[in-house]
C-alpha cells in the first residue's frame, strides 16, 4: 500500500480546520495563501496582510482589481466589511507585539527544536531577501508551517538541526506536511496525524530526526479532493 499523500490544496484545507473562530491570521507568500480558500464558512476569521490590511478579502473579479489594494505577494485582493488599513510600522507592531493568533509560513527546513529556515539556502549566486518572515516567526502567538515532507529530490525537510540559515530560533509550533501533522514539544517532533498507507517506520525513514507518536495518533486526510 502506498502512502495516501495529500495534495497542497488538501494540506491547506487541513490547516484551515485548525484555525478557530475569531482568530487573526497571517498567511505567508506562496502556498500558505491557499489556506484562505478553505477557512470554514461558519467561522469569522480575520486575515492580516503585513502591507497594512486587516480583514483582507478574496481576489476581486476580473476588471475590478485596484493596484493600491494588494496582498503581501503583490496580488490584487479586496477588503471585507470591518476591515482596515494602516501603515507598515503599525502592521509590524501587530506582528511583533503578539497580536496575531497565528501565522502560516512555508519552510525549507524545520528542526526538532522549532528552528525555522525559510528565506535562504545559503546559495550565494542569488541575491538574498527575507521580507517579513523573521518578524512573523518571532511575533505570532502560534507559528504553523506548511511544507512538503521532503524536497523534490527526496531529502527530508524535518531535521535534527537546520543546515540553512535560520529565519527564527525555536519558533515553530506545528508542521503540516503532505504526510503528517507534527507538533514540536520539548525539542522533539510529536506526530499527531499521519496519512493512511504509512507506518511509523515509513514516516521516520522520510524524516531527518527521531519521531515521537502521540497517544491516539490519527489518520491525516482531507475532506476535499
Amino acid at each position, binding site marked *: 500500500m502506498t502512502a495516501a499523500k495529500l495534495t497542497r490544496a488538501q494540506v491547506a484545507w487541513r490547516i484551515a480546520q485548525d484555525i478557530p473562530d475569531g482568530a487573526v491570521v497571517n498567511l505567508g507568500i506562496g502556498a500558505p495563501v491557499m489556506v484562505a480558500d478553505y477557512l470554514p464558512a461558519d467561522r469569522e476569521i480575520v486575515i492580516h*496582510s*503585513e*502591507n*497594512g*490590511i486587516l480583514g483582507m478579502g478574496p481576489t476581486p473579479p476580473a476588471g475590478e482589481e*485596484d*493596484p*493600491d*489594494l*494588494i496582498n503581501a505577494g*503583490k496580488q490584487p485582493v479586496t*477588503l471585507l466589511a470591518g476591515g482596515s*488599513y*494602516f*501603515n*507598515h*510600522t503599525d*502592521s*509590524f507592531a501587530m*506582528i*511583533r507585539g503578539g497580536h496575531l493568533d497565528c501565522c502560516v509560513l512555508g519552510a525549507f527546513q524545520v528542526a526538532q527544536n522549532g*528552528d525555522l529556515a525559510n528565506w*535562504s539556502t545559503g546559495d550565494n*549566486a*542569488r*541575491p*538574498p*531577501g*527575507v*521580507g*517579513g*518572515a*523573521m*518578524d512573523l516567526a*518571532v*511575533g505570532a502567538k502560534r507559528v504553523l508551517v506548511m511544507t512538503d515532507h521532503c524536497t523534490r529530490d527526496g531529502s527530508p525537510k524535518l531535521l535534527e538541526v537546520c543546515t540553512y*540559515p*535560520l*529565519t*527564527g*530560533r*525555536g519558533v515553530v509550533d506545528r508542521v503540516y506536511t503532505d504526510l503528517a501533522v507534527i507538533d514540536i514539544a520539548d525539542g522533539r517532533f510529536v506526530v499527531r496525524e499521519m496519512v493512511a498507507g504509512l507506518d511509523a517506520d515509513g514516516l521516520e525513514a522520510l524524516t531527518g530526526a527521531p519521531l515521537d507518536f502521540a497517544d491516539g495518533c490519527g489518520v491525516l486526510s482531507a475532506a476535499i479532493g
Partner: protein
Amino acid sequence: MIDKQVHDFDAALAGVGDGATMMVSGFGAAGAPQDLMEAILDRGWRDLVVISNNAGEGERGLAQLIRAGRVRKVVCSFPTSSNAEYVRDAWARGALELEIVPQGTLSERIRAAGAGIGGFYTRTSVGTPLAEGKEQRCFDGVDYVLEPPLRAGFAFVRARLADRWGNLTYNKSARNFGPSMAMAADVTVVQVDRVVGLGEIDPEQVVTPGIFVDRVIEVAAT
C-alpha cells in the same frame, strides 16, 4: 503663509544630486512615487543609496533607476520580486549592493529615526545571520538584537491627497511605508494625486500631519 506645494520637478527635487540617500515609499508598485523616480532618472544623478522595501518592481520608477545603473546600494527587505530580474543581473555583476533588513525592523528603524529614538531592541533576527555582529541583550529571559535608527537625506513618498500645509491621506494598502518615511528624512517630498484646499481634509482623517512634509507635487493619477 505656508505653501508646500511645488509646481515642477526641479523644485520638488532641489538639493538632490549624485550620492543622495533617499527613502522611497511603496510595497511593490502600490504607493511608489513613480513620477518622482522618473524625474530623478531624467536628471542623470548617480551613486544613489535607496532605502525601500523592494528594489523596485516591474517597469517603472525605482526599477528604471536600477536598470540604468544609477543606484549604488539598496537597503531593503525583499529585492527579489518575481519580475525583478534586473536586480539579480545588477547584483550578480557587482553593480548593485544589497543590504537586507527584516521588513518590520526596516520599518521600525525608519520610525525610530523619525521619532528621535537612538535604537531599539527586537527579537526579530535573533539566531540568524542578520543578527551577526549586533549587540544582543536579554530581557526577562528573552534575547533581543539592538537595531539602529535609519535616516536619509530625502524621503520620496506617494499619497492620495494633500493640502498646502502638507497634511496627507493615502489610498488603501498604498499607505505602507509612507507615514514612517515621511518622518525620517531631512527633506520629505510627496507625490499626490490631488492637492485640495486647506481644511478640506477632515482633521480626523489626516494620516500624516503636515509637520512631516516639506514639498508636495501634484501628479494626476493615470
